[in-house]
């Protein structure tokens, strides 16, 4: 795989520096057969430093998940070496089994089969709340 020229595939750009491995895991990119390149700490005019993930295959990425983890990222879709689509992300209205409710009084902690669903309660501040108990979900910031 030549890093700079993908023929058909996806480039996730403008990832906040240091978060690419987290995205790699959450998007299950380890399960892909094609080549995946992770570029860390690339210089960026806007961001200073950024991460980039290049995937040598056009696949459908969970944009909600991506938007939740890093709403500043952009997704570029490349066909025949040409950029055909650029998608900007935003925080999704709802995420399932991405944030986990830790409220011991919540039904999801009592019954294992219920999916943990969080809904966006405040877009400006990026606050998510558990749909069952309204507990605020902690977005996992950089450790």
């Amino acid at each position, binding site marked *: 795989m030549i890093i700079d020229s993908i023929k058909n595939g996806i480039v996730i750009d403008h990832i906040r520096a240091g978060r690419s491995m987290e995205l790699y895991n959450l998007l299950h990119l380890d399960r892909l057969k094609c080549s995946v390149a992770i570029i860390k700490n690339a210089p960026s005019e806007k961001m200073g430093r950024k991460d980039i993930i290049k995937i040598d295959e056009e696949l459908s990425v969970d944009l909600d998940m991506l938007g939740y983890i890093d709403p500043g990222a952009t997704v570029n879709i490349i066909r025949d070496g040409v950029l055909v689509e650029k998608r900007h992300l935003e925080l999704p209205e709802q995420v399932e089994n991405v944030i986990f409710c830790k*409220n011991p*009084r919540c*039904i999801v902690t*009592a*019954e294992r089969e219920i999916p943990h669903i969080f809904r966006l309660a405040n877009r400006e501040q990026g606050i998510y709340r558990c749909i*069952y108990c309204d507990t605020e979900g902690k977005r996992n910031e950089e450790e």
Partner: protein
Amino acid sequence: MRSLIDILDLSKDEIASLIRTADDIIQNPEKYAEKCHGKKLATLFFEPSTRTRLSFEAAMYELGGHVIGFSEAASSSASKGESIADTVRVVSCYADIIAMRHPKEGAPLVASMKSGVPVINAGDGGHNHPTQTLADLLTIHREKGRFSDLTVGLCGDLKFGRTVHSLISALSRYENVRFVLISPEELVLPDYIKEDVLQRGGFSFYETEDLEEVMPELDILYMTRVQRERFFNEADYIRLKDSYILTPEKLLTAKQDLAILHPLPRVGEIAGSVDDDPRACYFKQALYGKYMRMALILMLLEVS
């Protein structure tokens, strides 16, 4: 098919319509005596709450319907480890509507996602209790004839008091409602309600520890229980508890048309000597709760 899990599941128009129905039931109870003939309400009470269960059951009987169910988890299949989803799927086969009380927050929401019939949240832990809020709203409406242009005092445990949180959410959809939040420092209204509901909605609110200071301004006084176990130490509890007990003396400066509400049961926070005051509305409020549950059952069963 509709369920009622959170008071905000109902639009303002729907609340107005429920109030009109409840008013009409109070006026013409005979008109409603057979409305739910042949229908069954299942009361699934995974924790006991005799008062709420009796209110639902009385509501269904007064509509001419029947009631089945259980009143504590020990007598249900939950004690054998059955999931909420399975329980409601089975109960949906027998009943036309379900009222569920559960100690876990969100259990009625899970039920409503799996049920084939409407689910009414009859209280989920310390989280929501929308039919209590409906009772509160009907009481306010019958006493004041409006929800706008009111100064509403909320007194006692504003931190853990779910009825207070729901009532604030419900009233925050009307014009010119001023909230007066009266509580000890330990039990103030949580920040997220202040920020998400009051400040965002542009509502004016005033926080104080002193009930007597604000008494003359209030149109509504909503009392709640201040529980001993909420305090870090006994000394604080003893120091503070008397400040939040309503007595005839504290009412001397109150408006003549003040309406005093309490979700009940009370444990001493309103002196018995207040009960004969015409401004005491808390027993009427319990009665109104039954009428609002009747109106709600009619709405969810789409009985006209």
